[in-house]
């Protein structure tokens, strides 16, 4: 059936842009962690990137159809791993998010669950046979995402849980959401958010999570906690100016976690508006290249897979950069490809591997 799959069809251009972002990330980690106890994190990050590239190639070899065919087993495994976290997970900073694996590393299952959800949603909509979504389709597609989402929320990890939503949203939108349904969902979402915040009996969010969200609205409410973080982030970005500055916010340790969640603020402080805009442009190019790959995908399933990756990536950028410039609350979502952290890097490269996988099979028919 297939002609042949060749690395000539691999998206080298996309990889170049991705690696440019990764390189900027490593540089910024190096700059932000120099003279701190995290010094050397840039080297580790490079290892993660190299490992990620390896995984990406492996991922691109296995046909995504093969993955989609066995998706129910992956899905069950995903739920099981989240269950395992809740039972055996390591507690750190008040949350169980990691499972200790031998060798001193920690594994965060909620990251790779994203990957499985992208495939599961793609599979669901690819198998759909009508142009317009029925309410039951909507509910089923939503359930695929909401079940693991609630489990992650239980850890608690609001940020990661929220990243599951755009996967469903993108699938539903591309799968044929009707205007009426869109409006109704938007209304329900508004009521739901209102309930979480304004009805005291509803305990969906932990109090610190609510606090983070409210302190975003008014940073002065909590100047030492997340309000402080937002404040310091704004100062870092703002003081960078047009061309960037000395980086006193980053190097004086005023900026919290400048190598992970606030890496964009550190970058913006040191390289100014010009540098930060350039970095955003790189991300934009990557996203446009991905959507282009979605358009040229050989089938609906491929399009949904790639667009799932686009959805997750865009959401991460929106929430992370939005947080850094003060448009979004502090949710602890890292900036993909730049933020220091193995799980995040490996997830992104695995996701890119799936995109390559789809692209390499675009002429297969």
């Amino acid at each position: 059936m297939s002609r042949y799959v060749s690395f000539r069809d691999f998206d080298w251009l996309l990889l170049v842009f991705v690696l440019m972002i990764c390189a900027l990330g490593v540089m910024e980690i190096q700059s932000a962690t120099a003279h701190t106890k995290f010094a050397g994190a840039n080297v580790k990050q490079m290892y993660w990137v190299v490992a990620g590239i390896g995984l990406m190639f492996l991922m691109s070899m296995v046909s995504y159809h093969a993955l989609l065919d066995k998706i129910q087993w992956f899905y069950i495994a995903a739920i099981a791993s989240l269950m395992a976290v809740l039972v055996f997970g390591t507690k750190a900073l008040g949350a169980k998010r990691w499972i200790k694996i031998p060798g001193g590393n920690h594994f965060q299952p909620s990251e790779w669950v994203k990957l499985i959800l992208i495939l599961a949603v793609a599979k669901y909509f690819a198998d759909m046979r009508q142009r317009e979504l029925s309410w039951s389709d909507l509910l089923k597609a939503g359930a695929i995402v909401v079940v693991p989402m609630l489990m992650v929320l239980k850890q608690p990890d609001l940020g990661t849980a929220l990243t599951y939503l755009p996967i469903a949203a993108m699938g539903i939108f591309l799968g044929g959401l009707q205007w009426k349904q869109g409006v109704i969902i938007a209304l329900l979402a508004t009521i739901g958010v209102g309930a979480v915040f304004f009805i005291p009996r509803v305990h969906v969010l932990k109090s610190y999570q609510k606090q983070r969200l409210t302190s975003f609205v008014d940073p002065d409410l909590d100047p030492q906690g997340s309000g402080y973080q937002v404040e310091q982030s704004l100062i870092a970005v703002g003081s960078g100016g047009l061309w960037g500055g000395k980086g006193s916010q980053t190097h004086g340790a005023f900026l919290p976690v400048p190598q992970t969640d606030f890496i964009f603020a550190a970058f913006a402080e040191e390289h100014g508006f010009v540098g930060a805009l350039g970095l955003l442009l790189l991300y934009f190019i990557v996203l446009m290249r991905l959507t282009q790959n979605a358009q040229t995908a050989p089938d609906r399933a491929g399009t949904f897979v790639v667009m799932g990756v686009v959805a997750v990536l865009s959401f991460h950028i929106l929430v992370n950069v939005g947080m850094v410039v003060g448009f979004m609350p502090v949710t602890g979502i890292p900036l993909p490809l730049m933020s220091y952290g193995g799980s995040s890097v490996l997830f992104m490269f695995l996701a890119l591997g799936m995109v390559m996988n789809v692209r390499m099979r675009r002429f297969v028919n």
Partner: protein
Amino acid sequence: MLGRDDKVSEFRLTAAQYMILAIFLVLAYGLWRLQVMESNLYATLAEKNRIRNVPILAPRGKILDREGRTIVDNYPSFSALLLRDTPHDLNADSDLIAQGLHLDPDDLRTRIRTFASMPQYQPIFLKEDITPDELAFIDSHRNELPELDTIVAHRRLYPRNGFMAHLIGYVGEVTEDMLNQPQFELYNPGDVVGISGVERQYNNLLIGTNGARRELVNSHGREVGLLDETDAIPGKPLKLTVDIDLQIAAEEAMEGKNGAIIAMDPHTGEILAMVSGPTFDPNDFSVHISRGEWNKLVDDPDKPLLNKAIQAQLAPGSTFKVVMSVAGWQEGIAQSLRVHCNGSADFYGRNYKCWVYFLHQSHGDVDLEKAIYQSCDVFFYTLADRLGIERIAKYASLLGLGQKTGIDLPNEVSGVMPSEEWKLRNFHQKWFAGETISVGIGQGAITVTPVQLIRAISAISMGGRMVVPHVVNPSGLPPGLLQTANYTEVKNIPIDPEGWNYITDAMVKVLQPGGTAPSAGVPGIEIAGKTGSAQVVSLALRAKAKNESDFAQNGWFVGFTPRRNPDVVVCALFQGGEHGKLAARLATQVIQAYVEKQRRSPQKVARISKPEKVEVGALWSEPDPDGNNSKLQMGRFVVDLAKKPLPLAIAAPGVE
């Protein structure tokens, strides 16, 4: 129905692309807003974050006497610190540290433990104002105990035993009340400022300008670099008009007593000495005074914190008769008044007694001269009756009684010079003529402060030339410092020269046999003066009291020398001193010291031709503060021959 090969809607994919574009445009706008539009604001905030201003405290200016001798100096006061970010085991060293710094080892270990949760860079303040041998201990254990460190601050060193304490005042942390006043608006809580006396009055001159270190810090407050440093500008030295030699004489006279002594140059108003007793030790205030000690000072019935020279409002007693004499002379009554003193006289249906009545004597026929040197009350009752309160008040007010003198010291009080209008305003009552009789001998409603009295007497002794008393010569001060008072202002009170010659001649007789204070006279020195004994309560009431000394009379003396164109005026208040002659003895001691100093004064010795500085080495022994083991001390002094002409007795060999 969709087929397997049907593509996803192209329209929806494009829509997704535009949505992503929209997200990026919003984020780019966010960056634009922060980094371009509001970049200056955030740059300032970032600077504020990372730069810490640490003040470098300026040492306060010295306080010198009129000859440039140091009265108040600063000394470097060391505090011992325990640094905690060292690899040393603090607990293991704690015994040695406690021993060397004279601390309780258990207490020290407890403090190390309580600091365990604090950031490592934060040191523990072990002890303030450590002694030289504790400092030597730290210095000699630099290698064994690197965690010990010292910081130095300038502290005020005042003369011991409360010498001149009231005039000098003391410093302390600026209080909240003071911060609300406009003159202190630039200070911060914790700043050390003058709280009383000259330290407060001339605070702006003495305080200097603090320097600053701008340090780069990280978010933990740890210094990571130094940006720049501006040096502190030390406070300017302040030269008082006080002469230490005279001050010593006045302090010795006042020792152990309750009251005040002032010596003043009547030509200029320069205060040459000012004592208030009992005194307090301002050194107790320069570190930290304990609440108990403070309460003791405040609650003491002898009011040691009060500068009685300017803050005691008391009846002037017979010293007021000098003012009465001037008023009577100017009105043409006193010179011709003849009174027969029987020991008492009746006015307005009441019997007023002369002080000799209690000695079962009488003055007989009295004219103004005898009335002054014998202090005859009946004469002045009669004079007061003839003058009436309005004319008395007019002359007393002209001479500055019942008003602040404007001396350059804080919290001067005004006293009271009663008049018909004063009584109507304060008591809504008519003035009774009988009240005038008591005022005639300085009793009743009239109250004055020693500094008012000395100013009035000085004006009379100078033929009506009235000066403003002051402790700092304004000509040596930077302009603009004094706004409220002009100390060079001189008022001329019209007094008939014949009158004040007559009155001062009578005052000379006060210290001669037949006067009220012959025992206070000093052979070879002509002193004109007037005694006074002012009742605290009426004599009749006092006789009823169980413990008479509770209501002992206040002794007063005002005097000057010589009788014409005097060089010095002295006022002594001896509270509970019973009789004016006791106060007179205190005052004449000071006058004697003044005259003796003048007689061997270099003004009468040829000036040394080549003014220069001479360094003199000296050895002396001094007991340590506990009073035992005299230790041999040595040091070098620079004698500035241009400023301080050497008395002949100690003129060093080799000086021309």
